């Protein structure tokens, strides 16, 4: 069986474990970034944003567009952050503010609609060619070329880490961050205490879009993008956030990294065919396990 011989490779040449691990962590950092944004809007505003992946792809196209016009795509990260911030603000002011406080499907479907519009507009604007923003970096090779680290992936990892650290510090220390956390805990109480929750929601949603945009700019540099790729990133984000629990921000980052690693090992051992099935399979598993814990908990309470 191929599976057994694949496992055998990993045992006999442990260096490939390292290769997969590094690759997985580097990719996972970008997943974690997009998922972090989702966890924010989900946790704070109870909006399940299915357009998450399309924000990512939008950011990707911004970086690519800059690259095509002679500007280094790394600048795409802040530019995409800013543009998507404004875009997120616009979407919030026109659409999202009406779906907060509504039931689950309202936000899910409204953002699904937004996702369709974005992906098709990107297709009309930039054609459906698969694109990549060429950042022009080399790779480093270790262990006789067996382990390769693309510099651009490491840069992406660092960017993601800086961005995440920045956001977390902001949430901890700034006035707005405190307001956001207060609103997430109890929106009504926050309102009573004089927090303008509408402003908080608007800020949170824009921040999420901006984070996605930055993640997308990184994706465009380390992978390839296409207008219709968004949905896979949305699903990934949902898997990560659901697996970690949306109140648990450090958990989201850990789950994002874990997912990157899991995809790599799964693809290596079982074959790329199952790379996506593993992810969703894991999601279902996590949900079921959590459910069993809960029901045990319920029985104990009874």
């Amino acid at each position, binding site marked *: 069986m*191929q599976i057994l011989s*694949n496992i055998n*490779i990993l045992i006999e*040449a442990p260096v*490939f474990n390292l*290769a*997969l691990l590094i*690759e997985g962590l580097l*990719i996972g950092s970008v997943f974690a970034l997009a998922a972090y944004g989702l966890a924010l809007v989900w946790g704070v505003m109870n909006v399940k944003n299915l357009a998450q992946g399309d924000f990512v792809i939008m950011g990707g196209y911004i970086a690519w567009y800059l690259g095509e016009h002679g500007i280094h795509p790394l600048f795409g990260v802040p530019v995409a952050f800013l543009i998507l911030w404004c875009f997120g603000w616009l979407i919030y002011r026109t659409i999202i503010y009406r779906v907060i406080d509504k039931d689950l499907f309202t936000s899910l479907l409204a953002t699904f609609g937004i996702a369709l519009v974005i992906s*098709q*507009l990107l*297709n*009309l*604007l930039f*054609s*459906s*060619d*698969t*694109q*990549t923003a*060429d950042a022009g970096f080399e*790779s480093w*090779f270790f262990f006789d*070329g*067996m382990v*390769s680290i*693309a510099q651009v992936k490491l840069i992406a990892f660092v960017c993601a880490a800086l961005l995440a650290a920045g956001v977390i510090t902001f949430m901890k220390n700034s006035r707005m961050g405190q307001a956001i956390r207060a609103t997430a805990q109890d929106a009504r109480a926050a309102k009573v205490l004089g927090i303008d929750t509408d402003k908080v929601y608007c800020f949170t949603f824009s921040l999420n879009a901006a984070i996605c945009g930055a993640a997308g700019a990184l994706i465009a540099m380390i*992978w*390839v*993008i*296409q207008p*219709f*790729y968004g*949905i*896979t990133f949305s699903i990934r984000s949902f898997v990560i956030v659901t697996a970690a629990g949306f109140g648990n921000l450090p958990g989201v980052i850990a789950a994002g990294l874990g997912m990157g690693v899991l*995809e*790599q*090992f*799964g*693809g*290596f051992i079982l*074959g*790329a*065919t199952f*790379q*996506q099935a593993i992810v969703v399979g894991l999601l279902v598993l996590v949900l079921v396990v959590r459910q069993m814990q809960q029901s045990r908990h319920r029985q104990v309470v009874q």
Partner: protein
Amino acid sequence: MRHFTKWTLATVASVALVAASSNANAACEELVLGSAISLTGKYSTNGIHAQNGYEFAMKKINDAGGVKVGDKCYKLKVTYYDDESTPARGAQLAERLINQDKVQFMLGPYSSGLTKAIAPVTEKYKIPMVEAVGASRSLFNKGYKYMFAVLSTSEQYLASAIAAAAEIAKSQGREPSSIKIAMAFENDPFSLDVRAGVVEDAKKYAMKIVIDDKLPRDLSDMSATLTKVKALKPDLLMISGHSKGAATAARQIGEMKISVPMIALTHCEAANVTGKFPAAAEGFLCPTQWAETLTYKDPLFGSAANYNKEVKAALPAYKDKTIPYQMAQATAAVYVFSDALTRAGSLDRKKVRDALAATDMPTFYGHVKFHEAGNNIAKPMVLRQIQDGKYVVVAPSKYASHKIAWPRMAK
């Protein structure tokens, strides 16, 4: 968003232009063909290549006086629908074209999967269809009588790459059976059929397949598979996954410095790998249905090279790219259709079908002569290699202009 308005305006303007020009010479009647093609979704890159090919052919034919059928003349026009790259939609749209738009003749969609969904429909209504971009062999074992394909079937795509690998092994004093093959094929009808051809050929030489990964259709990352390639050091790496697969593979092969001496992948031209990943793509072997350097000729389009030149002049989007063969064969499909209509001398579907079946003509795209099952048997696949950023024909030897460079000289 300002940019966006500009685009919209440009689109509106160009639509208006097209409308104006088609009204300009209305001496001939209009003959409407139908086609459901992927304008959105996974296959839209190549769907649009094919659509451009159709449009280019029609413009050329119409400018040359249209199609003579009996004593009448017709201008060709195509009604398109977007099949969203999904077979279920494609089948419904074929029904719609036939039943509502009363289309009498059809041009094929992009990809084997879509063709597989549409062919049963055209077949049951006895609508002649010439398809240009559905190469899976499973299309030609269903006994279809009204479907014709101008292209070579998919098992031939990588056959010459395997033959070349065997030859090289022999010249180095190794047995061909010592060759290890790694395969990564997308999980879709076309690529799986290419894969089936590779498996058969590998068996013939008793080569060993060490990796056999099927890539999910949404996958944008192949690094797990490529890490396996590093571990197992195959002599030949084969990849097929439409444009997206080719782009992803080229990018990551460069990034991870995969040093396999021979790498063959499909859709190099459509994905523009030489433009986007020039360093990594050096030395790739790319099977193609058509190459602009081949010596095919016909009265309308002239030589293959002339077709190449005219397309680049007419469509600025292709100026810096190698014309993908998907586009050339779409053009050839329309050309064959118009020729068959003339030969049939009537718009009777049965007569047109018979005329299509009797086709035996040279085109800029290669000779076209249909097998009973509908596939073109008069034209070979050629294998090109990217050498110094240019595509050069390296196999089969009859058409080869360059020797195959081995091992691949990745920069």
